[in-house]
């Protein structure tokens, strides 16, 4: 039960983090160089971007929940179960990033939901 709760935290924190870091990185700009000095300057710009930092905070919440979930349940259960974040992230991509979501993509998301359901009902730990 605690594993399910922690997985929910992993998913919600991760989705909020991904939407915010995407916004942040689009503001920071494309990384089109591998020169160390230039990369450090880009990193500096990312670390002073409010959206990026907010995203990192939510990803930290997600990560500590992930560690907690792995302490009590199998990796082969926890990781596939977190793929339910697809649903949340696609909804986020549609409504916050205004990306177009096709019928095929929705079909794939339904399959992911089915897969997660199978993983969660499979015998094992927990």
């Amino acid at each position, binding site marked *: 039960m605690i594993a399910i709760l922690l997985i929910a935290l992993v998913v919600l924190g991760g989705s909020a983090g991904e939407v915010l870091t995407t916004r942040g990185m689009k503001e920071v700009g494309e990384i089109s160089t591998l020169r160390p000095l230039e990369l450090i300057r880009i990193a500096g710009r990312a670390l002073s971007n409010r959206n990026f930092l907010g995203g990192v905070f939510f990803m930290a919440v997600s990560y500590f929940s992930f560690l907690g979930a792995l*302490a009590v349940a199998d990796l082969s259960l926890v990781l596939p179960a977190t793929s339910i974040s697809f649903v949340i992230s696609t909804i986020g991509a549609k409504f916050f990033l205004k990306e177009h979501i096709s019928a095929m*993509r929705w079909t*794939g998301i339904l399959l992911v939901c089915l897969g997660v359901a199978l993983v969660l009902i499979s015998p094992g730990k927990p």
Partner: protein
Amino acid sequence: MKTATVLVIAILSQAVGDVYVTRGMKAVVEISSQTAPTGGLWAKLLSYVAVGLHAARSPEVLVGTLCLIVFFALYSAALSWADLSFVLPATAFGYVLNVAAGHYLLNERVSSVRWAGAVVITFGVVFVSRSGVRGARNAIEAMGISASPDGATIVATNPGGSNAPKEVPTAEVLD
């Protein structure tokens, strides 16, 4: 191609990181359960704090976390030039890799139902990543025609999921 290469390296470091982190956390829980008293709510909360403190000092958790930071850095870099709804399904191939890692490297009991679930997730991921709507939609919009809401016809003409609008032939897009 650049995106694919970066994401493959990202997925591999994620799997290695997850294996280390799982090993570390399982060991931490074992140590903590030996020292933590069994009892009420406060004892339970204290035991969680103990797990956290042990985890912060576990070399396996730290090595795993470093691998996952590599994953995160590559992932963030890819997000700077590609859409979230393309990058996310691409990295989801890692889910199956992690189930395999759990089974073969961590000796987890993976039932046939769990494998089936992982395979179904993979099929879902293939569906999602094949719906390369972004490039085709941009091409259509560039011609002054709005994309159909479902995008299914566009998907069929763009099986490679290409992000390059110029590669979508006009006749096929309008088909």
